[in-house]
């Protein structure tokens, strides 16, 4: 099997949770320095894709590559090393609740590098400054708002200078202004540091602000993949319905009747 030259590649991936087939022959390629946005309905398997790339989930079939590494075949030790090149920002931030902001951001540096405390402090300050959270170093996650948590999570994902950053619903649950701030941060950080990013979201404004390439996930497959402008004009009825937010179309076929009958 050939080794891909892309930053990320998923080949014919099947993923099933008990009875539910979430990904069905799913294939995707992500080029270096691209900002790919994967859109799709809630529960369509968008976050699963990110977990497959990280190797925290194993697919039922198919292969997942990060650069030349086949994530699905890596041994635990090698996988842990590869993960250090990937940053992940979780939907609910996933900050360690018992550690303050500084310690959360410093965690990967403390555990995975030989840097001194002074060096770590310098990097932590720099990353927190990037996301505008330098003054909140001593606060615990429980003392932060949703937007602040997201920013700290973003800072944490960047401390090891990753080549790829994954964002799981970065603007979900945030007010429009803070959502825009997070989007701007993602754009500026990926531009400055030349990193590749994959964002999964179902929030349209955010998606088109961030993305340099868009993909639509539907029934376990990518049904449309294009530049944002082309994507907006897609003739695919599913994409058109998703973008317009209309109740008429193939997405809710069958289930809509059930809802209206109730």
């Amino acid at each position, binding site marked *: 099997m050939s080794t891909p030259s892309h930053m990320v590649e998923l080949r014919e991936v099947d993923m099933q949770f008990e009875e539910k087939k979430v990904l069905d022959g799913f294939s995707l390629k992500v080029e270096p320095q691209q900002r790919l946005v994967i859109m799709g309905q809630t529960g369509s398997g968008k976050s699963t894709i990110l977990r497959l790339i990280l190797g925290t989930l194993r697919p039922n079939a198919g292969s997942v590559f990060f650069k030349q590494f086949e994530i699905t075949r890596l041994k635990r030790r090698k996988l*842990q090393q590869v993960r250090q090149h990937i940053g992940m920002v979780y939907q*609910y931030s996933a900050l360690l609740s018992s550690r303050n902001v500084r310690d959360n951001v410093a965690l990967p540096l403390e*555990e995975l590098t030989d840097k001194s405390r002074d060096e770590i402090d310098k990097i932590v300050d720099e990353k927190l400054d990037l996301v505008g959270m330098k003054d909140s170093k001593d606060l615990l996650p429980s003392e932060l708002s949703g937007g602040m948590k997201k920013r700290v999570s973003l800072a944490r994902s960047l401390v090891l200078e990753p080549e790829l950053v994954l964002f799981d619903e970065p603007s979900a649950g945030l007010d429009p202004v803070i959502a825009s701030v997070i989007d701007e941060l993602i754009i500026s950080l990926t531009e400055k540091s030349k990193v590749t990013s994959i964002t999964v979201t179902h929030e349209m404004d955010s998606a088109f602000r961030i993305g340099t390439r868009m993909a639509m996930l539907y029934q376990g497959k990518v049904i449309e993949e294009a530049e944002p402008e082309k994507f907006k004009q897609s003739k695919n009825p599913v994409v058109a319905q998703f973008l317009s937010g209309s109740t008429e179309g193939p997405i809710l076929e069958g289930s809509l009747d059930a809802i209206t009958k109730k």
Partner: protein
Amino acid sequence: MANNHSPVGVAQEVGQVSRNFLSEVGSVFWFIAHTFEEMFERIQQGRVPFRAASFFRHTARAGVDSVPLVGLVSFFLGLTMALLTGYQLQRFGTERLIPGLVAISFTRELGPLITGIMLAARIGAAFTAELGTMQVSEEVEAVEAMGIGPLRFLVAPRMLALFFLMPCLSTVSNIAAIFASSLISKAYFSIAFVYFVDLVKDALLIRDIITGVLKSFLFGLLIGAIACYRGLTVKGGAAGVGTSTTSSVVTAITVVIGFDTLYNIVYTVFFPT
């Protein structure tokens, strides 16, 4: 599918329960093995498997903070045991056996057992709830996604804290119980403290002490492993954390008592007095 009350149905039930039980035993065994594997891999890389501060935080919580509870419960049990056995032995004029009886039964058996049960309830439940909440809020996955081994980072310091602190707490339990029985011996059976100490020294063998200490290490490891395993395998949000915590305490107590019996059988068969 066979009817639930038919012999086939009952056999299926029994088979299912046995299979689940064996699969759980296997999972906990591999959980311990993988935790040590992650730790040794880390040591091979020339790094410490976890931070000393993290280990000492857990030892302080599991060990030092448990001293009052373990001491108090063992003290009361020592009082009761000396009192009840004393009255029976008095009828035969052999109340001087009280010190030896309490000392041997606590050092070999009750000290580690009572301490194990109390630690399973007090610390095992806390570890499961803590790790379970971290699991539910994706914190464990975030740690893993950073390339940090969650077993060596989250489990190892907790499991080893219990492993090393159990024998210390068992000793506290033994001392509290023996002290309590010395008070009863003095107050009700006129055994002076000096004589009490002599009787304890005469009755207690090094072998009893070693048995108790080895048992304590084993119980500590098992309680820690079960608590952390249950925590990291939580499913289903807040309700799942509750269910797993209950299950952790029940499993740990049952396993401690089960292993105690097994240990005694093996020890008695292979190392008879």
